[in-house]
């Protein structure tokens, strides 16, 4: 299934570059392998018309370096590898993304499990929130505390 059918296009636009950088950071890779890795991670099938212009922009910005290598049996492959600049870009971008994701999740799904609950709980702790609806608390409290 196309990535844009799995996730809204505007979300993908924001996250795709960092996702691609992360894949390339694992090991130098080529377009189709990057697309496959993204699809396997649950992002959906990223079209060549979306992926390669992005890789071209990263190459032009010096974030990735490229090298053509002969394919095992098929045509040649253009490999992309993260440069030092790219590594710094990924580290900074990943940290910012994690903050952004925590913040947005705590805003959008304050009662949800995972990062949203932890983020919301942390924010509430930080803000010193006291009086709460007991029914609502029951859904967010750890299992041990909800036992009779």
């Amino acid at each position: 299934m196309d990535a844009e059918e799995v996730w809204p296009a505007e979300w993908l636009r924001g996250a795709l570059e960092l996702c691609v950088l992360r894949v390339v950071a694992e090991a130098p890779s080529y377009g189709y392998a990057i697309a496959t890795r993204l699809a396997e991670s649950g992002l959906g099938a990223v079209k060549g018309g979306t992926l390669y212009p992005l890789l071209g922009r990263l190459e032009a910005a010096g974030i990735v370096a490229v090298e053509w290598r002969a394919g095992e049996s098929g045509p040649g492959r253009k490999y992309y590898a993260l440069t030092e600049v790219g590594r710094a870009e990924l580290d900074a971008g990943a940290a910012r993304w994690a903050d952004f994701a925590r913040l947005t999740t705590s805003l959008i799904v304050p009662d949800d499990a995972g990062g949203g609950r932890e983020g919301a709980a942390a924010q509430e702790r930080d803000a010193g929130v006291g009086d709460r609806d007991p029914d609502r608390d029951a859904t967010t409290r750890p299992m041990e505390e909800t036992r009779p």
Partner: protein
Amino acid sequence: MKTPRTARSFRYTLIQEIAPHVEKKWADAFILKLRTASVAGARIGSSLKEVDSHCAESGSSAVEAFGNPERYARSLNLPVEDVGRGSLAPLAPTLLEIVGMVVLTWSCPGLFRGQAFVLTTGQVLTAVLLAAELAALVLGNRRAVLAVVRHPVLAWLIFMANMALMVALIGTFGSSLARLHAGWSAGLGAALLLGGLAWNLLRRRAGKSGVDPVVAPAFTENQRAVVVAARRQAGVASAVNAWLMPLAALVIVPMEWALR
């Protein structure tokens, strides 16, 4: 590799070698879009080869994976050559050769008869028309190339109509505007022609011939042979471009001598 005999079959072989898994129509439109945007041939070939690599591995067609070829070509935002659209630099030597050729062939009949070169109103009008057309062609070269490729029959009809118009102008407006010494004007024409040729050859030697073949990274013997053949064909094309007008003069001037 069996060397293709015609330019058309060579071009087909070139695309087949660079991108055998890409639909020919898609590859043609992609190359034309980038060509007319003054993107370097090696960059075009590399981008097309990457499309081919993706199609071969995914089993999908170029249309499915990349969509419209022209939109995809635009989205790559590839850098253009230093000599971009509307630049006179690659065409200037050839334009000089054309002007020299026209002046020389108009002067020779008077020179061979021992008469002056009589400049007529028709010749001036033709020269102005030719100059305006060449300027329009240079300034809008991308559109002109696209128009010729998309409508070759119409382009040929317009070219022939244009030639007929020039002949009609010269035939209709025969009144004399100026009389020049035929030897001087023929000498000027020959100097312009040879100057244009020398300029063309110097640019060629400096690797600025303006002929830039589409080539891609080569891994097999066939692919390497195609790259070599593409570069050789580009060399031939640039030589033809440089020598066409001087060789035409070598045919026309003796004819004018014979018909004096």
